């Protein structure tokens, strides 16, 4: 008998047990917030996580991004090709402002992309598909326009967060991404603050493997 059958059969032949009664999902307070309170809650949570938050209007995003890069001393960035980032035409912006801007869509093989994200650039710029107020969590769908390594390998991750993407709690995200009957992404990532550890002497620090800095530019788009 093959291993799979053997395991399943053994589980099936075990005496049945009943499960405990299931209480409702406790109503989380974020569900009761209005739009502007929700955005404020998101920013509060992000700030607690030591994420630098910048609230601007849409027209100021490129200016803010340039200001941040100059402030951090960053000259080389990679930008993802998702709809949010594409709308800002950052290639042209980079030329104007004197930043070296790689677009993830410039690469069609894994090794070249890896060389650039691991060794060349100092920051990755991505859009986000969700921003969850509950815990200051950014949600990203990975696909051909949103490679996984852009928000992971560079030492700084700058996220562009349109306020229309702000939702109260996680359930709304998984319903939208996984249960609407559309294409399920190969990977979905929830990001909550920069990479961190406290594994040596319980001393916490940021940037263990992933980004040391996470910067959010939050702008109104609706």
């Amino acid at each position, binding site marked *: 008998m093959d291993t799979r059958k053997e395991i399943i059969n053994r589980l099936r032949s075990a005496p049945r047990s009943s499960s405990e009664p299931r209480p*409702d999902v406790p109503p989380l307070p974020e569900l009761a917030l209005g739009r502007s309170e929700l955005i404020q809650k998101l920013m509060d949570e992000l700030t607690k996580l030591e994420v630098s938050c910048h609230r601007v209007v849409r027209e100021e995003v490129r200016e803010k991004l340039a200001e941040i890069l100059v402030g951090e001393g960053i000259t080389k960035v990679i930008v993802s090709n998702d709809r949010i980032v594409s709308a800002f035409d950052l290639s042209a912006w980079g030329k104007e402002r004197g930043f070296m801007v790689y677009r993830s869509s410039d690469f*069609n093989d894994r090794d070249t992309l890896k060389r650039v994200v691991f060794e060349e650039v100092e920051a990755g710029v991505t859009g986000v598909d969700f921003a969850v107020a509950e815990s200051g969590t950014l949600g990203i769908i990975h696909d*051909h326009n949103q490679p996984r390594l852009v928000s992971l390998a560079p030492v700084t991750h700058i996220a562009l967060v349109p306020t229309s993407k702000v939702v109260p709690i996680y*359930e709304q995200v998984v319903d939208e991404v996984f249960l609407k009957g559309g294409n399920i*992404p190969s990977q*979905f990532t929830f990001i*909550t603050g920069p990479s961190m550890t406290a594994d040596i002497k319980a001393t916490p620090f940021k940037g*263990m493997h992933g980004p040391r800095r996470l910067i959010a530019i939050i702008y109104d788009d609706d």
Partner: protein
Amino acid sequence: MKIRTEEFNSIAKKEINNAYARAFLGLLPPIIAMRRVQVMSSFPNPDQALKLSRAIRSESIARLPDLLEEFEQKATKSGAKVLWAKDAQEARKLVLSLIRDRGATFVTKGKSMVTEEIGLNEALEQAQIEPIETDLGEFIAQQLNRPPFHIVGPAINVPVEEIRDLFLREGIMKEDTTDPVQLGYAARIYLRDKFHHIKVGLTGVNMAVAETGTIINVENEGNIRFNKSSPITQISIMTPEKVVPSLRDAMHIIRLLCRSCTGQKISAYVTLDTGPKKAGEIDGPEELYIIIVDNGRSEIYANPRTREVLRCIRCGACLNTCPVYTKIGGYPYGWAYSGPMGQILNPLLLGLDRTQDLYRACTQCGTCRDICPGGIDHPALFLYYRSCDVEGNEKLAGKKRPRSERISFSLWGLAVKNKLLWNTALRLGRFLTKKYSSDGWLTNLGRLFPGWFKERDFPSISDSTFRERWKEMRKGKYGHP
């Protein structure tokens, strides 16, 4: 890792005198426990939130075979390859052949307790494939060849000087420093190069979602994300009980997992993988293997009593609150799983005979049960293990107690059921123990019951029993009231 569960007492004795570890244990677990309480209060009704996660785990276990098949079907449909392994040996063989076929000379690993359980690293080393742990704590514990001190911080107790010496010796860094942050960054740079060039990434699985065939990893460092983004092949290893019914369930469990584990609302990264990368995607694995390792779980499942342990989500909250763990740390438990979590799990995986002191090292205080997000009643399980051990339960490899102890208890049982026998035995006992009695206490009985008298005294048998005094009183010896 050498299994040393039989040396519990001797290692515990050594560790309890380790001042450095003691200072650490006095400080850290209470802080994490306090943070847990703080962040639990972000729920409008913390009890209800806890109850729900327990109910989800209860349902996951009740429906385990169905959910497992549903998960397999959905994961396969998404393009993942699901493989099954009966035991540790089969699992090692599967992983080894996958790695060999891809010509990898090293693999990077995300933290995975099950790979420690099946001894994967040793098998890889023997096959000339270098396993590189990438969680900072595991990375250090691996090089020092030690079991995890704590499930969340496997090397959190190791002095910085020791880490410095290790990193200098192994060429992980050149600069002489004991700054924890600089040590961490040295490991970052060393491992970054590995992440860049890996062919195969290995990870564990925090949850497997039946509804969609999705596997979920929860982490803070980003090493697991690298293991799932950079290489062409991803191998994720799980045990059957990781499965949950739905994504909504999974997200609620994550709320409790992170609060219980580190006192966070959610960890820095939670990644949900459904199948390998799609055509046109530039990174992510071209092939995703999910290996389901039984290694005794279906046997554990067969017994409705032991089935309860499968509800564990490995948050580690029980360690931080356990009055025993917080004195001795993780080493005495002798294996991958420590604290109450290890005490319920190791005896079932290794046998009651090889883990005698584990399920006895409990004060039955029940704080582990009170906070467990999986809803496990640890103290009740310990009592069950003890009774199975005494009865010599064959399935669980119960050992029975020593002959002398069994005889003593048989005699005791006989005596307490018979008035004449009891009174005679009592008088005899009083006479025989008289010479050991001092100040109303017996501190030893010569060579009898050394185990008892090593730790505690016994009240002397009094000069007259209640019944004798009652009789005397009726005769008027003490005067009428």
